[in-house]
């Protein structure tokens, strides 16, 4: 039986993923101020861009990408997540991005298959 290269290539690498996410967010909403009419398009763009870059990594993972865009108005927001998975292979990463008029929070969950 061949010994397959498991472990190294099939672990969730947080640094790589966070770089991809940051680039997607910057690219999609980089220098813009909050605009209600465009926010729908922005969330879609951020998420789809991230997902396509993640799939290009070619790793045997299923991905869940969540994006929250919120206008800066002094209101508070709390987020929590609880996951039932295999700790050795699966992982998550959250990127918080902000400019003068809005916040963008992107969470990526990667589950090995």
């Amino acid at each position: 039986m061949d010994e397959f290269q498991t472990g190294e290539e099939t672990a969730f690498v947080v640094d790589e993923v966070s770089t991809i996410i940051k680039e997607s967010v910057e690219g999609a909403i980089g220098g813009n101020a909050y605009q209600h009419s465009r926010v729908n398009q922005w969330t879609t763009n951020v998420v789809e861009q991230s997902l396509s870059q993640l799939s290009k990594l070619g790793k045997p993972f299923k991905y869940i990408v969540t994006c929250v865009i919120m206008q800066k108005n002094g209101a508070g927001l709390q987020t929590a997540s609880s996951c039932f998975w295999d700790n050795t292979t699966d992982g998550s990463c959250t990127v918080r991005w902000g400019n003068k008029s809005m916040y963008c929070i992107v969470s990526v969950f990667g589950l090995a298959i």
Partner: protein
Amino acid sequence: MSDLAKEKAARLLKKRGSVSSLGSHDVRAKETGGKIKDSISTVSYIDEPGHHDDNPRPAVQMENTFQLAPLRRFPVLTVNDILKDVLDSYLQEEKYEAELCRQMTKTISEVIKARVKDLMVPRYKIIVLISIGQLSDQNMRIGSRCLWDSSNDTFSSHSFKNSSLFAVANVYAVYFE
């Protein structure tokens, strides 16, 4: 054979060591097109403390089950009811307060995860995501996309609102092939 496995485990642990730090680093956005962007991004990944102190199990080689699809599908409607039930009972009369809601999000996500686990749907991995926010004049959009097998994997979502806060709960169920 076991040495190779031990070596791999050690390498994995070293890599994981950087992941488990409660770290966050600031990155200034690069200057592009001559305009300085005043945006800041931070990355955070929080893991349970003490989790990486255990001896890492060597990666388990699974045998073929010759199962193409799950024996029991994920009960979306049941989970919808669970979400509605939990959010209503925990948040019906609450006002938004930063510290209280911080604890509340963590508690609610654990409670929902426990109740979904009680359903005992075999071979499904569960992800529960809760957001609780203050109701003020702001606008907000939450979106998510998933790269998975749509015949087996699914999600469930519920939102709740009272006079001072709103809450959104998402549960994703991913089949482990």
